[in-house]
């Protein structure tokens, strides 16, 4: 790697050749403010707040657009820079409404943070502020199905414009008019219609773009904890952070308040799609299965786990043993679950993996492609020896359908730990059950779906944020999804259900924890790239709000990896090695 060495504020700093002064400063913990620069969107040079003094250059330079050269001497805190920077902030705030107390971004707003640090203490501007769509809340206008826009707060950094143009691939946002009247807009005010629209809230450095989903649901200081995990709604496996709101036990509402993307250059970059970002309400929704249910005659009552397991055993025995039991499994099952399932289904009639396949409407030139397979672990199932057909294809259900039609399936065990619909089409199961081709339908699910309603025995499972589990994404990368909240009601982690069922199916399993299963996977599948390291995968534990509020702005989540060197990334392998587990991650001292 070619490097150059320069001096920033008297510190010798060595960076890769071609990096900008701003990148060097951020990487080495030198405080330089910036708005239009975003590592995923490149350099624009329009906000002017990153100005620094560089020796032998006549004027102050924007750090974001100046490339580091050997021997460069940069000053970020000389009186000249401080004064010039303060006046830039004065102009940025000249028309900003300063409604921070009612602004959704308040508390995690780079404009707030940097203005406090670098701005002047008072403004000399005495004229009325410019207003675009009205004062106060009247300025919040529709900006597509997921977003609201407040133009009064906008500082015209054009991050959203560049995101849509360069990443999304469809330049729906632009700046219309000029000068004083410049405003962020979409053609005919139709708003942003995109599956990546939620990222616009992340990139917006002020409260101009907010999501309808998270709007007014929480304040940053109320989000007591953040947990690094992964999204499991498709086979991309985006790295995410789940945010937990602090609330008393008796208070209404969910603890899980939002999902935001987390930098992983090899998987999702800085972004995630709207499906993963917004489709989490089912986890703490009203439709969760909280207890096992057993259907006896016309009644369908909640029952203890012991009774449910006995009922499963009776059903299997009544059907003539495991050979007439078939498994129909959503590819939302983690590696641990699939590993256990493979053992208990050894004597069963058959096992088919299913998933929903839907092509996402996206521009042809998008840089962030959302896969069509809506399940996180199809690749993992293939690695563990399940027959799942070619990569990136719809699930092949023909053999299962044939077995059902032939009347071989006396007991059908459906395992569906994903959200409603993620297992794909189940109407044919319901129809077969109606027609009497399936004697007993056992459903192991998280939600009261149509299938769960039709079940004879219903077992409550846990969602992806309720268990430590591992998944292999479409590129073969094994990633860990961490336990963020406990499963509700009597629901238990899926591997526990399966281990208990092992008794029914005659396999004597003695796994005491999901970690033990990971050890077994690593032993049996050491030849699969990456699998030998599964036991050393680090699961993230909640980072307390106190820590991240002190360390960095949470909407600048990508920067945490500079700030929290000790935060276990959800990665493993030779490069990273086994990482310590800790309940509280100490904040690294930031200079």
């Amino acid at each position, binding site marked *: 790697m070619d490097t150059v060495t320069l001096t920033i504020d008297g510190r010798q700093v060595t960076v890769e050749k071609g990096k900008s002064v701003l990148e060097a400063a951020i990487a080495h913990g030198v405080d330089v403010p910036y708005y239009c620069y975003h590592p995923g969107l490149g350099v624009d040079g329009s906000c002017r707040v990153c100005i620094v003094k560089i020796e032998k250059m006549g004027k102050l330079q924007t750090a974001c657009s100046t490339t580091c050269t050997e021997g460069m001497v940069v000053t970020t805190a000389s009186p000249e820079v401080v004064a010039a920077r303060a006046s830039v902030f004065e102009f940025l705030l000249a028309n900003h409404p300063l409604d921070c107390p009612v602004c959704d971004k308040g508390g995690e707003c780079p404009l707030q943070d940097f203005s406090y640090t670098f701005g002047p203490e008072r403004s000399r501007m005495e004229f009325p502020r410019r207003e675009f769509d009205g004062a106060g809340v009247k300025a919040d206008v529709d900006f597509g199905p997921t977003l609201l826009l407040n133009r009064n707060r906008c500082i015209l950094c054009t991050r959203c414009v560049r995101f849509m143009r360069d990443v999304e691939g469809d330049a729906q946002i632009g700046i219309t008019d*000029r000068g004083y009247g410049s405003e962020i*807009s979409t053609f005919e005010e139709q708003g942003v219609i995109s599956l990546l629209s939620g990222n616009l809230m992340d990139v917006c450095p002020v409260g101009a773009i907010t999501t309808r989903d998270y709007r007014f649901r929480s304040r940053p200081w109320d989000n007591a904890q953040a947990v690094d995990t992964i999204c499991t709604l498709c086979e991309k496996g985006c790295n995410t952070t789940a945010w937990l709101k602090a609330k008393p036990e008796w208070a209404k509402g969910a603890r899980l308040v939002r999902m935001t993307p987390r930098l992983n250059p090899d998987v999702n970059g800085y972004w995630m799609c709207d499906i993963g970002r917004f489709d989490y309400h089912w986890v703490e929704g009203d439709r969760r299965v909280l207890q096992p249910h057993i259907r006896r005659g016309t009644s369908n009552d909640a029952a203890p786990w012991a009774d449910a397991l006995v009922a499963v055993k009776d059903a299997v025995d009544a059907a003539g043993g495991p050979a007439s039991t078939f498994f129909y499994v959503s590819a939302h099952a983690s590696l641990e679950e699939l590993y256990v399932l493979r053992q208990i289904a050894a004597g069963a009639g058959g096992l088919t993996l299913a998933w929903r396949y839907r092509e996402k409407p996206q521009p042809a030139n998008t840089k962030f492609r959302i896969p069509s397979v809506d399940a996180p672990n199809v690749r993992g199932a293939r690695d563990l020896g399940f027959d799942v057909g070619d990569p990136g294809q719809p699930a092949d259900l023909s053999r299962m359908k044939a077995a059902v039609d032939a009347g071989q399936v006396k007991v059908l065990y459906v395992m569906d730990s994903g959200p409603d619909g993620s297992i794909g089409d189940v109407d044919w199961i319901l129809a077969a059950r109606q027609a009497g081709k399936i004697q007993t339908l056992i459903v192991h699910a998280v939600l009261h779906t149509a299938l769960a309603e039709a079940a004879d025995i219903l077992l409550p499972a846990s969602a992806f944020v309720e268990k430590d589990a591992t998944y292999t994404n479409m590129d073969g990368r094994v990633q860990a999804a961490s336990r963020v909240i406990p499963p509700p009601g009597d629901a238990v982690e899926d591997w526990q259900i399966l281990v208990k069922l092992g008794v029914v199916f005659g396999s004597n399993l003695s796994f005491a924890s999901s970690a033990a299963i990971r050890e077994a996977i690593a032993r049996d599948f050491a030849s699969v790239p990456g699998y030998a390291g599964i036991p050393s995968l680090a699961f993230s534990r909640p980072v307390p709000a106190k820590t991240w509020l002190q360390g960095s702005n949470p909407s600048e989540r990508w920067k945490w990896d500079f700030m929290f060197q000790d935060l276990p990334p959800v990665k493993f392998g030779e490069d990273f090695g086994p990482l310590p587990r800790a309940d509280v991650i100490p904040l690294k001292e930031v200079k």
Partner: protein
Amino acid sequence: MSFHPAMDYGRGRHQSARALPEEGEPFVYTAENRATLDGILAHYPPDRRKSAVIAALYLVQRQQGHVTRQAMRHVAEVIGCTPEEVEEVVSFYTMFYTRPVGRRVIQVCRTLSCALMGAERVTEALTETLGVRPGETDAAGEFTLVEVECLGACDRAPVIGVDDHWHECQRPEDVRALIDGLRTKGAAALTGCHLRVAGDTE
């Protein structure tokens, strides 16, 4: 099929106050204009065709006088960009009109040099003579008065443009005479310029 979960937060209740350009009639280039545009587009690499947006918009304006949303969509399709990118250009430049204009457009420069040399006085004189304020068209549909940004002749401020013709060092009495001349003699009154921006229109 919707991929977004329903989010009802204030949907439809929050309307933007931004004035949209006119929707207008369905627009396609005439065969002649399309041929001209294709010739211009050939100057650019295939992936940079949208660089021709200004030329494409001038052709729209030549064809129907102003740029409508329908025209923006058509231009976007022809040059390969999004309608929003076209609207950005239309709304940025003062020479593109989003509403119908009169037969002649009087543009008064209001940028620094002209402002210092009394452009506001010129605008006042024109307002008085034409009976319209900046941005308006007179009742007969003859003249539209607009204030524009720098016309690039700062050494001869104040400058006004009548369509594509520059008239420099204009004092209020000069513009009154110019308007009278335009009313009586038509294009023959356009004498003050030493440059024409696009030489082929008249």
